[in-house]
């Protein structure tokens, strides 16, 4: 695949907006440390009697406590935090399994978190119009190796070495919502002897 290292964006690549509360019977938030301020921004503006409808899941940066305190202080009906995106997304699935029509989902933070939250919402039957996303923080990507299907988290380099099959992968802009991942395809498959410089590009 002889593509240039940084492609212009293509139509399967997600775009993100700005979180804004819309009418709903319940409001679920999922954020990591870079997205916490988005949650605080919108929830702070809600009238106190609406807090009964607010449920927040949070993935803090290890060792960080200030944002946990701020999010807890919002007074949501439920607030839980987990050390990994995977655990938080799994909990989101548990919560959404009881959710009713009129549920709204709000996702804020890095692309990996937002993407996995979208996929979980879709898997739980939430219509895409009921999901809002705001991107914050690092541009690190979640990448699926198309060859061995390994998911590689927090990819910041182009290309990236697959930790499982060892192939050097071109990280494409082609994105699967279902997998919440960008596609990684061997960059030197035609000539494995070709040497390719690894650069940090998704900061």
């Amino acid at each position, binding site marked *: *695949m002889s593509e240039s290292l940084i492609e212009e964006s293509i*139509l399967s690549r997600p775009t993100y907006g700005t979180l804004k509360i819309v009418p709903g019977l319940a409001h679920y938030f999922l954020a990591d440390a870079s997205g916490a301020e988005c949650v605080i921004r919108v929830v702070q503006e809600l009238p106190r009697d609406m807090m009964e409808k607010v449920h927040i899941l949070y993935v803090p940066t290890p060792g960080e406590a200030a944002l946990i305190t701020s999010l807890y202080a919002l007074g949501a009906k439920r607030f839980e935090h987990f050390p990994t995106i995977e655990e938080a997304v799994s909990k989101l699935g548990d919560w959404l399994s009881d959710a009713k029509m009129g549920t709204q989902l709000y996702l804020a933070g890095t692309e990996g978190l937002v993407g996995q939250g979208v996929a979980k919402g879709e898997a739980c039957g939430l219509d895409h119009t009921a999901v809002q996303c705001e991107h914050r923080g690092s541009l690190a990507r979640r990448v699926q190796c198309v*060859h061995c299907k390994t998911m590689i988290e927090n990819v910041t380099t182009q290309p990236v070495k697959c930790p499982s099959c060892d192939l050097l992968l071109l990280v494409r802009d082609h994105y699967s919502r279902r997998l919440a991942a960008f*596609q990684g395809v*061997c960059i030197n498959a*035609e*000539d494995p002897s070709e040497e390719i410089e690894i650069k940090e590009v998704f900061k």
Partner: protein
Amino acid sequence: MTIQFKDESFRGDFTYANSPSNIPRFPFPFPEDEYMYSTNIEPHHAARVGSPFENAFDVDEHYVAEMKDRALVLADDPGRCQALPHMETAGWDFLELVMVSKARDYPDLFKLTMDGGHWHWINKPLQIDDTFTFGDSSTLPCHPMEYIGRQVQGDHAILDQRDGNLWMDAGIITAQADWSLDFDIGMNFFEWHAPVPLAHELGVFQRALKFLLTLPQGQPSRRLNWTLTVNPRLDTSPENYPKWGPDKLTVTPENIGEKVHLRVELQTFWRLPRSNAILFPIRTYLMAMNEVVTQPKWGRRLHRVMRDLRPELVNYKGLSRYHPILVEWLSQFDDGAPTSPGIFPD
């Protein structure tokens, strides 16, 4: 008409070849001396006896060998055949369309007997003789899409229609030109076409989608698409790119005629009756350059098309490594004479 099915391979020793009588029926994809994207969709009417457009689903001398290659791919990677849960009915629609069409068009090869819901299907070339209850998946050895997909040449995607878009929600894809069903499943029409350069800007996909959303039952359509492949390899999936990618380095001016193959997809579009899904068969035809140039019109025209191909397309279609020597090699078959319109040989 009895077809002599060839015993040949699409991998390893690559014994695939076209019989001399099969060459003129190749769906040459260039109606003019230059190529640019277009929607180029036309009704899938029966056309030209002996051409690949004669029947609903073309069966040719490669049928049995292609089905063997499909079985090898699926054994190695079951992810090449997937259907989201809501696509079961569409799978039965697909099975019915293929069985009814093949039994009608090739009565010496296929036979279908329907007694209410009780169906009896005989596929002589593949030595299959099965009975099952239509609509009851427990009476088949696998999903209806996989069952019939293992008996029909070409890849098959099944597209669900909702929200004014088409969604790639099922498919049996083992002979693809470098796209991954496993990655693209669940995407809408614009998303799965996202990596294609230029065409979005030209509005090609918007027009094609608009057309497909109103595709009526009983009025299938077709178009041709093309690329080049080194060696007659059907499985040029991204999954196996490290296996077929190095082939590109083996092309030399001496072997280019036998190594480089024109790879043509006869794509057809069918509205399915129960599910309202669209069946999208992608039938691949392969022909070595040496075989293509036996038809003087095709040799001349292919030279002009390749010589003038936009650089973005040379790159996107993965031809960069051998494009210059191909153009040079083809030039010997271009005497400068005008070519006649249309795709059929003179």
